[in-house]
């Protein structure tokens, strides 16, 4: 059945009413008339949703490992997941039987009554999926090269990488979590969840018309993010095009995830002008230290009265700016996270779950991060603790198709 979750709730109330008053015929009517919810992002399309989609408020991210070597089982999983993701994005329950008293419901139920919340569910394939277990070694794109070790990396292997990843974003955290939970359940016996991360607040915007959300350091970082409505920029920097040697990935993108732990307590003790020097921005307005407003171009040549650069040479913004990287840009789509606190130190466990999309990480994230890891003033206050790289296939155009179907063609 394809009951909308809201309709399901209305219907449920109708039956409860029927038990006492026999009013089902009247109460059930709103369900028929219910319009499609406004906060719904189309699952189907040439591109996967969740990349160019304006960032929603919340993130639930999970990486999964295959526990089978059966190619047919992988294919079946991707079909099942695609159907479930499409239903959830439409605000429907996970397909299957949720009504037989003697069986557990197909949908776990925590999103019943909630609207879609602009849910997008985006899949990525890790390098390990192409290791030969599934006869896919020949389909591995050259750009899906394992990320190198960067200076100062403190990567925990148990919470990094994975055969598959799911990025679920929604304006309601329950809706986002419901997605990764139900996919894990549908995949039991075929996949196990390898690691997972919740993000409680978006830390990127996709339009200069919008204010840039602040990170947990209180700064607007990434104010000059790619505007996703700009198709030329998206084609130039984000979408894999005909230059990619693997036809199955054309129209897709590469997702780099980095869990960047912030040393919150130390940062909070740093004096204001140093905090601003670290980012190269004014804390309150978000404008470059050379003036203007948050979205304005910085003047990297500007010097102060004593001849020193106004935006320091090791400022995060100077090192990351496309002007200083031969035009190199990435689409940032990260979220602030917290995992509570460290029980050994009592300090906060929080930071940025950095997500970036790009057309070739070898020419985008990797050189950029090499430079940042070696020079960034911010490094005193952050630590990269988890990492993942995934190739995100193009979108699913019709309900008969499924994620990554071209891999099996």
């Amino acid at each position: 059945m394809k009951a909308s979750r809201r309709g399901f709730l209305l219907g449920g109330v109708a039956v409860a009413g029927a038990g006492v008053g026999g009013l089902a015929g009247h109460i059930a009517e709103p369900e028929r008339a219910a319009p499609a919810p406004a906060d719904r992002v189309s699952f189907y399309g040439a591109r996967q949703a969740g990349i160019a989609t304006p960032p929603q408020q919340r993130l639930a991210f999970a990486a999964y490992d295959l526990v089978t070597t059966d190619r047919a089982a992988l294919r079946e999983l991707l079909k099942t997941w695609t159907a479930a993701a499409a239903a959830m994005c439409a605000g429907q329950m996970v397909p299957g039987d949720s009504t037989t008293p003697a069986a557990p419901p197909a949908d776990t139920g925590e999103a019943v009554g909630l609207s879609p919340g602009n849910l997008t569910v985006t899949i990525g394939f890790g390098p390990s999926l192409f290791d030969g277990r599934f006869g896919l070694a020949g389909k591995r794109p050259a750009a899906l090269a394992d990320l190198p070790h960067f200076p100062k990396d403190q990567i925990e292997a148990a919470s990094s990488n994975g055969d598959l990843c799911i990025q679920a974003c929604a304006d309601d955290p329950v809706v986002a979590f419901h997605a990764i939970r139900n996919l894990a359940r549908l995949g039991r016996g075929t996949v196990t969840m390898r690691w997972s991360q919740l993000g409680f607040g978006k830390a990127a915007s996709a339009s200069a018309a919008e204010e840039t959300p602040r990170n947990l350091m209180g700064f607007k970082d990434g104010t000059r993010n790619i505007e996703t409505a700009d198709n030329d920029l998206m084609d130039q920097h984000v979408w894999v095009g005909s230059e990619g040697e693997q036809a199955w990935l054309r129209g897709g993108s590469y997702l780099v995830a980095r869990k960047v732990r912030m040393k919150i307590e130390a940062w909070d003790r740093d004096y204001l002008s140093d905090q601003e020097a670290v980012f190269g921005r004014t804390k309150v307005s978000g404008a470059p230290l050379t003036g203007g407003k948050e979205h304005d171009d910085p003047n990297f040549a500007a010097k102060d009265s004593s001849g020193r650069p106004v935006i320091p040479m090791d400022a995060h913004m100077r090192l990351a700016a496309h002007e200083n990287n031969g035009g190199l840009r990435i689409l940032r789509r990260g979220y602030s996270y917290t995992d509570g606190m460290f029980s050994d130190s009592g300090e906060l466990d929080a930071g940025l779950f950095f997500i970036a999309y790009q057309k070739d990480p070898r020419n985008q994230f990797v050189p950029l991060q090499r430079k940042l890891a070696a020079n960034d003033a911010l490094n005193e206050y952050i630590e990269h603790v988890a990492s993942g790289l995934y190739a995100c296939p193009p979108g699913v155009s019709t309900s008969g198709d499924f994620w990554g179907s071209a891999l099996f063609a």
Partner: protein
Amino acid sequence: MPRIMRTALRSLPVLVLVTGMAACTDGKSSSSSDSVAPGAATVTITLTDDGCTPSPATVTAGPINFEIKNSTATKVSEAELLRGDTIMGEKENLTPGLSGSFSLKLEAGKYQVYCPNAKTEKVDFTVSGSAAAGSSDPAVATALTGATAKYQQYVAAEVDKLLPATKTFTDAVRAGNLDAAKKAFAPARYYYEEVEPVAESFGDLDPDIDARIDDVDNVADWTGFHRIEKGLWEDRSTKGLAPIATKLDQDVAKLKTLVATVKFQPAQLANGATELLNEVASSKITGEEDRYSHTDLSDFEANVIGAQSAFQLLQPALEKIDPTLSSNVRQQFAAVLDSIKPYKKGDTYVDYTKVTEDQRRVLTQKVDALAEPLSQVAAKVTL
């Protein structure tokens, strides 16, 4: 929010009908019979301090949805459906303002609604006639009926083995022979763990036999296997354990009498098997069950074998109903049993503290991979 959610979930079993109705009656007024779910009768039980009366008090055999609500009762917060001493279904923790439900397929017979602490605690409830057969294939129905009869025999046979195995254990305790008692502990428990969900349906019997220290309000009242386990491994003494040992013998004897009276439905076999795997995941893999002796892997195996025995009886029918599910569950059972083989040491298993966190994680994943498809079996075999 929790209450709205509860309402929505409670109504899941009957919702398909309403959606379907809305589509097909479109604009026409609906007769009252449209609002009754196909085959599923609804019985309302209102909790009051005086008692709880089911309405209606008699229904026809078949699927029945019990809706329990508490508007004002302060002394009563639960309702159980009993058949003799067996709890068929229950809803607990309904404080004033809360409601809940459970669904069962009931055969004809005399039942009671039991509301502990009410002025009148038990009220009769009658199921009349016989349920219509749900399966169109008579061979499947016969296979399922056969499965329930064989499961009854299986349970009786395992409890028959439980009695002497327990006696070996309790004799050693009474004789003050610490080593012999320790050696006999896991083998005795094995037969109990195989059929635990059945034992759990007999009210206080399971807590008396198998409670852990944190399950009891007052440690002085703690009895059963784990009380003795603590004495043997932690206190390293049989002192004071003889009365507990004797009560354990009596309790397993009581279990033998009670299991002889129980009849099962195919869905109960399947759901009981799933429960056994939930037991494995929630208390064996965590090492909570046998926290003094660390013999958890023996219980683990017994739970899985008990679940597999139930499943294998359903398998011939399931092969006809859903061969893909049947073969998936069969393979996952084999995978779980393979996963504990490396820990086998002679007749027993390694001390569970030797199993690392990473190894425990793998065990959990194997159990989850089995329990998920297994949980789908009940709906397929409901007659």
